[in-house]
């Protein structure tokens, strides 16, 4: 029952708590179809919490959250693909790269349906999209960090989702993998898929995202990367960002160099 004309995600005054700790404080957000939204913020700012809430893995304490036009837990099986920040899987699990990416098809298949030619083609395309087709027969423990990340992104794509959630997919991967992921994300977004992605890497946000959300438990800023930079919320962020992220825009607004003490922790 998704509303094609509407938004992929709509959150209003969303509050998420872990026991007494408020991880997200009245977050209001709209993500239309065909948009890449980047989420930046310091460690512990609730970036992952926001993605998990959208994925239906966490129950909000209050506020409204509609994903693909419905409650996150009522979303059709297979519609949301999520790539977590740290894959807490057992790397000795008996599975090849092919097997892992093929799992992306599982939510799409009923138990009586065979894993058919179409499914195999989708898996092959997903492997090609992240340039790991040649590794299909490898056991997952034989992959480098960047290759593992690509395999999990490939699994998400093989699911043919209506919404893609990526939690810091570029952390700890090589430059080649990062660029492959960026090209892929832009291609998927051009095809109408909404993509929400967190990042620690403040490089090239302009090339990755249509809009950027600065989060520190509350929404500090949201808009095009350029607008957000102009709002200057980065000044404080950059100082406690744990990576050496630098914002590189072709014509950086001079305001970027000013400091805004009120957004410091």
């Amino acid at each position, binding site marked *: 029952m998704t509303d094609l004309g509407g938004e992929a995600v709509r959150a209003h005054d969303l509050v998420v708590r872990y026991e007494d700790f408020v991880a997200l404080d009245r977050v209001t957000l709209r993500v239309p179809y065909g948009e890449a939204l980047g989420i930046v913020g310091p460690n512990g700012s609730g970036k992952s919490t926001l993605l*998990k809430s959208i*994925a*239906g*893995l966490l129950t909000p304490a209050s506020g409204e959250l509609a994903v693909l036009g419905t409650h996150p837990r009522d*979303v*059709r*099986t*297979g*519609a*949301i*693909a*999520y*790539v*977590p920040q740290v*894959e*807490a*899987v*057992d790397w000795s*699990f*008996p*599975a*090849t790269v*092919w*097997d*892992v990416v093929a*799992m*992306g098809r*599982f*939510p799409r*298949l009923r*138990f009586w349906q065979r894993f058919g030619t179409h499914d*195999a083609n989708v*898996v*092959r395309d997903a492997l090609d999209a992240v340039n790991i*087709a*040649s*590794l*299909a*027969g*490898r*056991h997952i423990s034989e992959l480098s960090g960047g290759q593992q990340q690509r395999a*999990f992104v490939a*699994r998400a794509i093989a*699911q043919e*989702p209506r919404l893609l*959630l990526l939690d810091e997919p570029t952390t700890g991967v090589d430059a080649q993998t990062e660029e492959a992921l960026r090209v892929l994300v832009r291609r998927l977004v051009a095809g109408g898929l909404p993509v929400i992605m967190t990042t620690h890497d403040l490089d090239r946000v302009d090339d990755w995202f249509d809009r950027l959300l600065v989060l520190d438990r509350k929404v500090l800023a949201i808009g095009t990367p350029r607008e957000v930079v102009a709002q200057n919320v980065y000044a404080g962020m950059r100082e406690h960002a744990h990576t050496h992220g630098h914002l590189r825009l072709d014509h950086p607004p001079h305001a970027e160099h000013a400091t805004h003490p009120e957004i410091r922790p």
Partner: protein
Amino acid sequence: MHILFEPFHYEFMQRAFAAALAVGLLCSTMGTYVVLRKLSFIGDGIAHASFAGIVIAYLRNFDYYVGAAIVAVVTALGIGFVHRRGRISLDTTIGVLFTAAFALGIFLMSQQKNYAIDLQSFLFGDILSVGSGDLLLILALGAVVALATIVLFRPLLYTSFDPVVAQASGINAGATEYVLLVMLALTIIVALQSVGIVLVAALLVTPAAAAYQLTSRFSPMMLLSAIFGATSTVGGLYLSYYLHSSSGATIVLLATIIFFGAIALKHVRQSAARRTVHVSSPLD
């Protein structure tokens, strides 16, 4: 030649072999999930917990099997519930609940002046005493578990590997876990009679652990585990006939020999692979 087929001449031995085959296949297939989900403790746990059911069945005068099955399933569901709601690790939950159920069994039994339960057969199992009714029950429960394994093959595999991402994609990881725990409870009850409380854990862990040494994909692991399990139970029963040994113990010892054989074979293969140039070909 005659002497080799001698065990098959007796009707009770034929039933025992049929039960051994069914139990071997069932336990080792489910064992794939037990090993991959790191639930090695569960066979021991649920088997001990079912002891309370046996005592209750004795006191209330109904079938031991039914009593054991009810307590096993309730304990399995309780383990799932406490694990999920209390956010307590599965092995801790199993440790708490199985000892509690076992203690309840001892407690109830200690209240009796004289107890005439043949506990020996539940502690060590006696596959030779499997009657035709027992065999029918083993086959029926086995069929239910086998059907559930087929229906839930993909959700069980996905949630065993990556429960969080499976859940996000819309697969109900919680419900899948509950069903798996109930399937395990039924499997353990079926296996109790052949190998007993003490040894049932081995059938759920050892063949799958052996298969794990030799394969790097899930379906071959399950198939190999089933072959090892059936070989252990049928072969162990056969050997026990000639060795005049306890069938349960012989079965478990044979499974253990296969396990160490698998480890040895893995090392031989690895050193052979190191000596030759390894060329990997993409599989699909």
